[in-house]
């Protein structure tokens, strides 16, 4: 790239960042959309007239503390250079810095420093078009590791604990192949070691791509390509993984997997898996507790909309939105198909409540991707945030009532019913990824988002007067991240995970809004079965809880 090209890109980036800071704000908005000092990343998806389907699907974002300094860092997945048209053997130019994934370390003053190259995370491989990211400490060494999904080969980066990472994909045996989308670490057999689940979208390749649309070229629907199975890797504990997709029953079901999320929905002590499928029944893989899974979506009521229609499932959150102690599901999808709340009815069953929950009224004309259920106003009820934007960049040509670019949705939870909130930005974007966490450690949950062809946006929570509590788990018999633990605080429940949303990985700390309460009672059920309780814990603190040795 010439120096002039670099200068133009830099200028465009600066101009765009400047525009963000001028976004209008209402009086009751939850977030400021602020520029992130030191972050010059642009998600380069390279749209073409050939409409290769991968172009419209990236890209992920992670909030993590990779160096354990207590400050949240961010990792952004870039896509790649798609030529128009692509010929056999062509790569995606991932060796070019423009197309690198990026790791930004947060500094004490809230700015960020690009540490990609020194961390060993540059150049994700020319044959890999980037998609998503999962974060988890798979070797229990206390440092979060990073798994990047691609169209191509996925990459596992082991965190060396000294600010650098090593690509251990080959040794670990988790390269997958084909088109991987979202991924997540979880411990399905409660052996204290994090396993890895990878969703795959389609049996598709550049060579077998096709273009749809009668008057203007556009992306073909997923049904035009064969479905494919997701992948489950079992962690052997020696730095290697075993592909147990077949033996576990995961590969018995083929779909169009996009988002993935984990929780123990039936309270049997084993973490279950939900896969958001595009134009297909949703998959709820019930963990049988013996290394196998049974797909229970239809029989449990979590596969279809309330009127029996298939969903275009994209992103998913798996947390308890009505404070009944049971994890519910929130699935985002395409326009004219409301976002679905699958309410957990107990006894292993769900009811689709897209209308009762209020989500239907908020989502008829938009496409949803990254999604989170987080308590943004610390009132004790988890709110919803959805990144939005249509799949087709020319959708307006086909349907004048729809848009390619849309602002995100903030839906405030009023005792189990969602109502439109003010996200603090009406700027429309082609939204995709969203990661949730407390980036500035102020006790209020922020959102970091990605948009196609655009820079990431930080929706920084403006805060307020309500109380909060943030808990960091450290497993001993359980996996060190404590993923799979059920944590209950003052009648609220969270299921410990960094997964969910779309392509993205959240701050693994568990955040609770406490409202007026100045103290909290905590009850934890660890994946090992250990139960721990703490009474009268003071609000307004970051609390680290280590797993008790006693059962």
């Amino acid at each position, binding site marked *: 790239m010439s120096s002039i090209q670099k200068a133009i890109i830099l200028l465009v980036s600066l101009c765009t960042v400047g525009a963000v800071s001028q976004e209008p704000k209402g009086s009751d908005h939850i977030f400021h959309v602020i520029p992130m000092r030191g972050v010059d990343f642009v998600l380069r998806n390279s749209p073409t007239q050939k409409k290769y389907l991968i172009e419209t699907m990236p890209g992920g974002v992670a909030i993590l503390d990779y160096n354990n300094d207590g400050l949240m860092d961010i990792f952004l997945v870039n896509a790649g250079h798609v030529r128009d048209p692509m010929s056999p053997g062509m790569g995606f130019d991932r060796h070019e810095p423009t197309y690198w994934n990026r790791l930004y370390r947060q500094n004490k003053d809230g700015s960020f420093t690009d540490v990609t190259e020194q961390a060993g995370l540059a150049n994700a491989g020319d044959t890999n078009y980037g998609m998503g990211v999962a974060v988890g400490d798979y070797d229990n060494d206390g440092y979060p590791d990073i798994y990047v999904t691609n169209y191509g080969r996925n990459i596992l980066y082991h965190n060396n604990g000294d600010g650098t990472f090593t690509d251990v994909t080959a040794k670990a045996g988790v390269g997958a192949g084909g088109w991987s989308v979202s991924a997540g670490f979880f411990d399905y057999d409660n052996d204290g070691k994090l396993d890895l689940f990878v969703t795959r979208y389609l049996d598709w390749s550049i060579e077998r791509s096709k273009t749809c649309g009668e008057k203007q070229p556009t992306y073909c629907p997923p049904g035009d390509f064969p479905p494919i199975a997701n992948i489950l890797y079992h962690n052997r504990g020696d730095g290697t993984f075993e592909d147990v997709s077949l033996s576990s029953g995961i590969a018995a079901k083929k779909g169009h997997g996009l988002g993935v999320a984990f929780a123990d929905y039936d309270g049997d002590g084993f973490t279950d898996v939900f896969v958001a499928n595009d134009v297909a029944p949703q998959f709820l893989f019930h963990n049988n507790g013996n290394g196998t899974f049974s797909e229970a979506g239809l029989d449990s009521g979590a596969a279809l909309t*309330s*009127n*029996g229609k298939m969903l275009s499932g994209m992103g998913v959150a798996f947390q308890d939105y009505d404070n009944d102690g049971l994890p519910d599901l929130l699935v985002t999808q395409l326009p004219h198909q409301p976002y679905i709340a699958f309410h957990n*009815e107990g006894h292993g069953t769900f*009811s689709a409540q897209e*209308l*009762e929950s209020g989500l239907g*009224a908020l989502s008829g*004309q938009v496409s949803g991707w990254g999604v989170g259920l987080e308590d943004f106003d610390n009132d004790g009820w988890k709110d919803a945030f959805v990144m939005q934007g249509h799949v087709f960049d020319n959708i307006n040509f086909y349907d004048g*009532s729809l848009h390619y670019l849309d602002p995100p949705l903030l839906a405030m939870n009023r005792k189990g019913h969602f109502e439109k909130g003010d996200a603090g930005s009406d700027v429309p974007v082609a939204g995709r990824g969203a990661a949730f966490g407390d980036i500035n450690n102020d006790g209020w949950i922020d959102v970091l988002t990605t948009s196609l062809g655009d820079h990431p946006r930080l929706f920084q929570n403006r805060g307020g007067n309500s109380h909060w509590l943030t808990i960091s788990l450290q497993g001993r018999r359980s996996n060190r991240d404590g993923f799979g633990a059920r944590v209950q605080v003052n009648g609220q429940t969270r299921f410990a995970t960094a997964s969910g949303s779309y392509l993205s990985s959240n701050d693994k700390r568990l955040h609770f809004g406490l409202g007026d309460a100045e103290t909290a009672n905590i009850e934890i059920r660890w994946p090992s079965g250990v139960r721990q309780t703490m009474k009268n814990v003071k609000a307004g603190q970051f609390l680290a809880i280590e797993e008790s040795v006693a059962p």
Partner: protein
Amino acid sequence: MHALLWVSLLLQTQTAAPAVPPEAVSLLQSGLQSESSNDLDSAIAAFRKAADLAPSSAVVFFRLGEAYMKKGDYSDAIPPLKHAAGLNPDAPAIQQLLGFALLAAGYASEAIPHFKKVDEPGPLGVAQLQAGSPAEAIVNLRAALAKTPNDPDLLFYLSRAGAQLSSQSLDNLLAAFPDSPRTHQAKGQSYFEQKMYVEAEKEYQRALALRPDLPGLRLELGQIYEAQSDWPKAEKEFRLEVKTQPGNGEAAYRLGDVLLQEGKMKEAAEELQRSNTIRPDMADTLYSLGRATAASDPTAAERAFTRVTELEKQTALAAQAYLALAGVHRKLGKSEQASRDMQEYRRIQASIVVAP
């Protein structure tokens, strides 16, 4: 054998016709044999020679025309058939075949008198439709359907005729009253069918500006908003329609359904129940009523969904109702019934997928 019978029948009608030379009869028989063995070119050659030898024989020209018809050369069939008809205007077979030849070659108007002569309402209706007379076509197609009620071709042409008549009426309306409320309503409806929502909305707004009290306008405008998932605007229009027409069950259903989409379950249930009272046992209304009450009153939902399954059998809506019933039964702790519902759901779904 059949062909020879036709020849004899035709010959019987030629009472005043001159005798056919023996060579022509021989060629006629030779042609018929070729025709029976599907050698249509040889048959046509033989019939042509026979026609040269017997220019006054309607039978010979009829056979020649028929051979062309069998070959698919409809235009070539017309001259010999016209000649035959000139020689024997009373022969129904000649009139009928000439009508078919003309219709097949695109001369629908010319075909009409020939079908009229033989009292063939089906082909006559088709010819009238092609000739741009849908109103007459509908009369004749209906008469033909009275004889053969489930003829798919007749049903197809009848639906075409209906659409054409509607289009003609609309054209007349547009030409005569270009700025009437009904004209704007009709235009709006047309845009709506083409999913041109912005244009459709404008037309309905124009109609409303001229006649705000016209029944149905708000209902149709609301449906435009409904199609765009713009629930608040749809609700507003449906409410206005319901205010104008409180006895309109469709308006009550639409309002109830849009309230349902907005998550206003209590209001939705009330309106849907009202619609069901005005217009009982509409499956769509009952299904929406079930959805509106599923969370708050599962027993009422169970009643509504069950009624849907009684009204609908092998349809997508029946499958949806069983799926919803399974959810309600799970909620009510009736797990065995839920399992049976799911079995029914799967059975109907499978039959819907398998059906062509």
